[in-house]
């Protein structure tokens, strides 16, 4: 959907290591989002961006940082991964604050 790719698609890492997930879009959408999805919690917003170098926190931002240096790329960094950050991470984009298009997701396992 909307030409959104995420990399890597799967990652296994160890506690304490830094991890960066990448979201790339080809639709020139202004807004980009990072969510995590865990059983029983639905989709929880981590951070979002409303333009190049313009980002804001979501409801579960602790332990995560983001950067957006280009319209098409939105990076999510776990500074020091913890087991509680094991999850499926989805990137999404939108042209406004409304209808969102999701990427295929990244499955992250922190051992």
């Amino acid at each position, binding site marked *: *959907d909307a030409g959104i790719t995420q990399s890597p698609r799967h990652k296994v890492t160890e506690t304490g290591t830094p991890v960066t997930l990448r979201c790339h879009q080809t639709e020139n959408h202004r*807004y980009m*989002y990072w969510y995590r999805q865990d059983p*029983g*919690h*639905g*989709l929880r*917003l981590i951070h*979002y961006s409303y333009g190049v170098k313009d980002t804001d926190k979501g409801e579960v931002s602790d332990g995560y940082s983001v950067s957006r240096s280009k319209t098409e790329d939105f990076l999510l960094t776990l500074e020091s991964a913890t087991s509680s950050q094991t999850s499926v991470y*989805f990137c*999404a984009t939108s042209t406004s*604050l*409304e*209808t*969102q*298009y*999701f*990427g*295929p*997701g990244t499955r992250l396992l922190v051992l």
Partner: protein
Amino acid sequence: GQQVMQIPQYQHVQEGEDFTTYCNSSTTLSNIQWYKQRPGGHPVFLIQLVKSGEVKKQKRLTFQFGEAKKNSSLHITATQTTDVGTYFCAGATSGSRLTFGEGTQLTVNP
């Protein structure tokens, strides 16, 4: 902040039975959207409702937006195994981003 509650969390049905999921917002919404996520997949946009009391249909799926624009429902008539997945509602207030409900996971027994 804005909260969107969705019930039930899980629903198991026999193929051919109907299914309904409900969404309630703590605030009045400018619009509500519905998404479907197949097992192992990503959420996909289904529909958007904007007007008070609005009803929209997509084949066996019927979407309603409440008169007060604080609640919504998705009804599936005569479920099929292809309906399996998690259905999310997401509400927006004017000028703010979407808030997703926790989703209803539907399983259909053939």
